[in-house]
């Protein structure tokens, strides 16, 4: 039975396809654009598409975190990096020779094909045994029970990242 375009199923299908399109277009821009800042914009679009997909799949919490963290923090940091490192607009990403482009296209599509075939043929766990509904409460509960170890460890990882960036960026302890 095919749902018509304007039925709820049809509309939600359209939304899904739209989100996939945004994600893929963003990814293509991110890899193909010549100006770094445009690559970044593509990346942001890709992040937003992925956030939309999470929302669509019923995990609004993850979707919002995706926006908050990836768009609001990571993309901004990358943008800052670009602005500080490359103020000269003339510096475009150099075109590689045509051959390497063709070869990487072949290699990339081979990998994508392999992964897709494996994914399509696999018996995925059916959604009936879905662990929880992805709400904040469930995420919180599992972070403090099943994944308590990870939850504690992540804080150490973050500590390392923060201390490391400070230690590397700091100057002047020896000047005192």
């Amino acid at each position, binding site marked *: 039975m095919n749902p018509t375009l304007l039925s709820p199923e049809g509309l939600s299908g359209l939304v899904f396809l739209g989100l996939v399109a945004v994600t893929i277009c963003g990814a293509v821009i991110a890899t193909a654009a010549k100006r770094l*800042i445009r690559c970044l*914009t593509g990346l942001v679009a890709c992040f937003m598409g992925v956030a939309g997909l999470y929302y669509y799949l019923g995990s609004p919490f993850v979707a919002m*975190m995706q*926006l908050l963290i990836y*768009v609001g923090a990571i993309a901004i940091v990358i943008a*800052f990096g670009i602005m500080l490192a490359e103020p000269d607009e003339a510096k475009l990403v150099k075109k590689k020779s045509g051959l390497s482009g063709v070869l990487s296209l072949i290699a990339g599509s081979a990998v994508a094909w392999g992964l897709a075939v494996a994914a399509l043929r696999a018996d995925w766990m059916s959604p009936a045994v879905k662990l929880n509904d992805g709400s904040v409460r469930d995420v919180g509960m599992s972070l403090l029970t099943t994944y308590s170890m990870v939850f504690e460890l992540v804080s150490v990882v973050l500590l390392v990242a923060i201390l490391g960036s400070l230690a590397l960026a700091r100057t002047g302890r020896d000047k005192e």
Partner: protein
Amino acid sequence: MNEVIRLVIYLVAIIAFAALNAAYLVWVERKGAGHIQRRIGPKEVGPYGLLQPLADGAKLMSKQILIPRGVDVPLFMIAPVLAMVPAIMSFVTIPFSETLVARDINIGLLMIFAFASVNIMALLLGGWASRNKYAVISATRAVSQNVSYEIPMLITVITIVMISGSMNLNEIVMQQTNILKWYIWPWTGNFLGPISFLLFFTCSLAETNRAPFDLGEAESELIAGFHTEYAGMGFGMFFMGEYANIVIGCSLITILFLGGWQCPFGLFPGIHWFLIKLYALCWTFVWIRWTYPRTTLWGLLNLSWKYLIPISLVNLILTAGLLKVM
């Protein structure tokens, strides 16, 4: 299908609300500035200059959208849209009254902050795409400011979430049934409540790039900041986005600390209370803008990293401890 129609209606209403607010807040701002500076402010168009915003709007819309040579055209065009859309989206979860809310989702609070973070991207892209030194400097300033103030703001919000146990804005409002139960008071949850309020208020000022934190648009140094190169509706969108953000910031303060649509005395709760509180706060924003001088960039960043963030962290830890004990 009904749900879809309802959403469309809400969306239209929200856009109209945002646009009207932008228009009339400008009027309030100009009038307020005028009186604070012992002038009259706009007075020619309509009584008390009340039609001035409409005239301004008509002017902006009829102007040609100039695209200066050398700008990065696609990014230049996207930036104003990015400034506007997240601001509009944020209104979706704001409960104007118990029932008057477009989408009452459980993580509304988180959603507003998620969209607010997208907004930063717009400033950055707009400034960068303009290929104008002032715009770029302004963009970096605005973004570093936004990023630094987002941290204490989120931490403060977490304390409220901990006290109320919910990220649903409507539920947070429902818990503050009368003036004594507002989360601004020290006896509700955390004796640092007033400090949370001040932190959040300061951060909202900074997040919306308002004076005294409007380093991004310091007109004496940077012309008009990141939207220097924008003309017509391009500028208009940034402008609307900015005022929409002010309204959202004030709505959040209202909801989190001042009981949202609840009446202070427990009588006749509803949208009127929400609007009264909202506009009182908006007026405070205007008032602050015209009475305080602009800070320096370093002062601004130091304030956040050296004072607000540590204070908010202490606040968070204390709140957690108090909640555990009590």
